[in-house]
């Protein structure tokens, strides 16, 4: 999966936004801001008075749905929907254009089918007459789902058929097809297989990931004679999950941090503190990159945002070009399992475990991974640096004072959670608010104009992820409906004996999966099944989650699809093979770390048990 990062695309925004687009961005930003404001106000009111906002949690959850659909529409507008394929890069100009037409054409068809299925869901819900708060019916928000798919589909169609008449012809075709799926009985096997093959081809040439997953789910549902509206039930229950608003809020905090001057200040702190010591440059690199990844949830993006700052630092300290490249490429990895990283949040939501416990479980394993990276750096530091410059206490004091606000960010998130002052969502909102206030009002790193750019960007990324999440659960739901997990569990139980055997098999399967798919689709598609299997083998769900994530984060460093390899290749202008050679020794060392995490459960469970 390629993450929609503007730096990589290099074209955001490609053009000055038109008035209608500006309005769309403004609405998206407004809803996102409201999601942050309501929990903070609720928290303050609860702490100070007996009041509060009526229906605060339910409102924020449904605003999350709105951000998801609006963000998806903006992502479609900006050509930034998540795709799985890296194949189109090798195609020629003409072939690439054809591939684009085909890929988007498939997605248009899926959007039409989804919009019609979700409309049927909304009509059924409308009759039930549920209310969120203040008399606002639930179905108003639910109606955003089919509307969003219709808009996404229309925008993709406009790329397939730029001329208006052709576009309307496409629209009529798509509507006819959607109607056919709603009235069809059971889809015969051969037809289903043919359509699945067309879909698979689309996945190869760049059909957006959500359309591949939803299309697959739709085919399975139709083949089994199940109502397609079931996809909508799962979409809805995923995006209004009570813990889910933490995702947009922490993402917002991460984006604001990355766009501000915080990276520069933090590197100055760690360089001033440790730069003169043996291994100091490594320590600074690993700590800053890990810290950043824990907020953005994407260690690839960390390579982009920080690579240009930490690479010169390492080279200045006498590191060889290759170990430095390896280190920079992998330095953010421990942040993937360090709170409040997005993968931890997602896994907690998908597996139904407490967010706080998941945070605690990831803490020590994350430290282990960081220690491995630092040891690697120490080994490659030239010995002549050993007795280099004495620590400069004055510079260190100045740097610390200069970055005090930024250094306090993790404390804000942590204290709010651990003190029992805030729910996980409120803590996320508080962190986002704090980061925003520091970046704009206190530091003045970011102007209002910057926010006008950053907020929709963040909404777009969240929308892209929630869209995939929503439909991925539909696929899982088919598996549940067919009672396949039960069958897989009993098959695995008959094949693999014992907990150790199961964990070993899990390591191997996840390592293979990590070569092909990225951590987010893996969590959404594989985690529900792995959770069931883990329960059957008596593996603690928290430990299982950490093993799963640690294993999948290795995938950032492996071909075929390895985000950090791609990002580093782009950032340092080196072929992917060369980056892989540079990172290989680290990959092996981190792999050993994953084995330790797998077979030493107490590393994951000690902290949650201690707090218990």
């Amino acid at each position: 999966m390629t993450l929609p990062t503007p730096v990589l695309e290099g074209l955001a925004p490609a053009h000055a936004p038109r008035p209608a687009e500006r309005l769309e961005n403004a609405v998206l930003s407004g809803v996102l801001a409201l999601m942050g404001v309501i929990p903070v106000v609720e928290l303050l009111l609860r702490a100070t008075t007996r009041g509060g906002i009526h229906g605060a949690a339910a409102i924020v959850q449904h605003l999350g749905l709105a951000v998801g659909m609006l963000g998806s529409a903006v992502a479609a507008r900006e050509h930034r929907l998540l795709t799985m394929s890296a194949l189109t890069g090798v195609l020629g100009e003409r072939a690439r254009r054809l591939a684009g037409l085909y890929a988007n054409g498939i997605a248009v068809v899926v959007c039409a089918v989804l919009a019609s299925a979700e409309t049927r869901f909304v009509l059924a819900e409308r009759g039930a007459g549920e209310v969120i708060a203040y008399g606002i019916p639930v179905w108003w928000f639910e109606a955003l789902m089919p509307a969003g798919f219709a808009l996404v589909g229309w925008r993709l169609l406009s790329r397939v058929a730029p001329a208006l008449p052709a576009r309307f012809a496409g629209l009529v075709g798509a509507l006819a097809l959607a109607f056919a799926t709603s009235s069809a009985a059971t889809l015969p096997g051969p037809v289903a297989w043919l359509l699945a093959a067309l879909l698979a081809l689309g996945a190869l040439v760049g059909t957006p990931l959500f359309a591949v997953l939803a299309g697959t789910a739709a085919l399975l549902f139709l083949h089994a004679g199940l109502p397609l509206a079931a996809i909508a039930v799962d979409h809805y229950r995923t995006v209004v999950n009570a813990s889910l608003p933490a995702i947009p809020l922490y993402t917002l905090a991460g984006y604001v941090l990355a766009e501000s001057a915080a990276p520069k200040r933090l590197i100055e702190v760690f360089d001033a503190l440790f730069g003169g010591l043996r291994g100091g440059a490594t320590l600074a690199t690993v700590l800053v990159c890990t810290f950043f990844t824990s907020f953005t949830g994407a260690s690839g993006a960390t390579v982009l945002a920080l690579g240009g700052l930490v690479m010169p630092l390492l080279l200045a300290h006498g590191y060889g070009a290759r170990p430095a490249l390896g280190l920079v490429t992998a330095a953010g990895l421990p942040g993937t399992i360090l709170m409040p990283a997005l993968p931890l949040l997602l896994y907690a939501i998908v597996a139904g475990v407490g967010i706080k416990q998941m945070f605690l479980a990831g803490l020590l394993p994350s430290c282990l991974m960081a220690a491995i990276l630092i040891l690697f750096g120490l080994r490659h530091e030239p010995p002549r640096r050993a007795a280099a410059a004495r620590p400069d206490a004055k510079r260190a004091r100045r740097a610390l004072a200069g970055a005090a606000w930024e250094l306090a960010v993790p404390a804000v998130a942590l204290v709010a959670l651990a003190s029992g002052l805030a729910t996980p969502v409120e803590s996320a909102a508080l962190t986002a608010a704090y980061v925003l206030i520091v970046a704009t009002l206190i530091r003045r790193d970011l102007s209002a104009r910057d926010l006008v750019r950053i907020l929709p960007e963040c909404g777009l990324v969240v929308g892209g992820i929630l869209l995939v999440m929503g439909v991925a659960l539909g696929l899982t739901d088919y598996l549940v409906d067919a009672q396949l997990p039960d069958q897989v569990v009993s098959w695995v139980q008959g094949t693999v004996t014992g907990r150790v055997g199961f964990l070993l098999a899990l390591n191997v399967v996840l390592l293979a999966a990590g070569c092909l798919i990225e951590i987010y689709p893996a969590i959404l598609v594989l985690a529900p099944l792995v959770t069931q299997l883990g329960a059957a083998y008596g593996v603690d769900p928290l430990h299982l989650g950490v093993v799963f994530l640690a294993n999948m984060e290795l995938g950032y460093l492996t071909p075929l699809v390895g985000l950090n390899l791609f990002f580093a290749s782009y950032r340092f202008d080196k072929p992917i093979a060369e980056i892989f050679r540079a990172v290989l020794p680290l990959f092996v060392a981190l792999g050993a770390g994953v084995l330790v995490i797998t077979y030493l459960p107490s590393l994951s469970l000690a902290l949650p048990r201690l707090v218990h």
Partner: protein
Amino acid sequence: STVHVKLATLAPKGSLYHRVLQQIGAAIQKSEGEGATVQIYTDGSQGGEADVVRRMRIGQLNAAMLSVVGLSEIEPTVSVLQKMPLLFRSTDEIDEVSKALLPQAEKNLLAKGYIAVQWSDAGWVRFFSKTPAATPADLKAGHMFVWSGDPDQVEIMKQLGYHPVVLETADLIPGLQTGLIDSAPLTPMWALATQADSSASYMVDVRWAPIFGAIVFTRAAWDAMSEATHAAVRAAAAQAGPELRAYAARADAEAIAAMEKRGLKITHPSAAQLRAWADFTQQLYPLIRGRTMPAATFDEALRIVNEYRARAPAAGGTR
């Protein structure tokens, strides 16, 4: 046969509830014969009760074992049987109210496209807290868990001067551990299974509210079955009824005993403290009447219980 029943429940695989559903499924298959299928989804694999109701609305599922949490999304009048705290002191009182109200509720359900069989209670919710609490006022100082699926409840507790914190079920135990919440209404069985009592080690021995539920079929699924099958389903359900009720009472008592053994401290309110709970309902009821349940049903339930107590004053009993 055109009978394909897909039935969901939150109950765990292998539990008594699952076994009862399997018996009903066997009755359907025996009566409908070759080709009839019954699939049972346990452990909430189809989602929470609200999700299950949504799936029945669109026809993905056509039967479910639901508590009032899910049933009231279809038919609000059943709310009194679970969502009216401190209304019932015994299962006899539940019987009185359900005998009077359920015939109409079943008619309403039928009009909305659902058939209910086998209504039953499934134990009592009690308050668990981190510090001893004998009266409602004792719970006021700390923060109280309210389930995220119940926004009305949040509002009501706020109006009464409590500090509700809205959480997903998965965050309840961590919330108790960090002190985000100090108390939560739980069934003893759930508390035992999740070890909630290790961080909320006080339980006040007041029956806050019963868990009450039924097995429901969509009308489409029900009409596809023959009259004989209807009779077979009702017979299998009726046979399970006493077993379910006896189990609920026993399981509650056993769970409390097991927790007491590992350190749960049970607060038995004095007569005066019990009056404080009764007074609490005087503040609470005006807020829920007409809001979380229809006013007419609310009044009816209250009238029935009061009349029953006037008739049999000793019936504050133990059953």
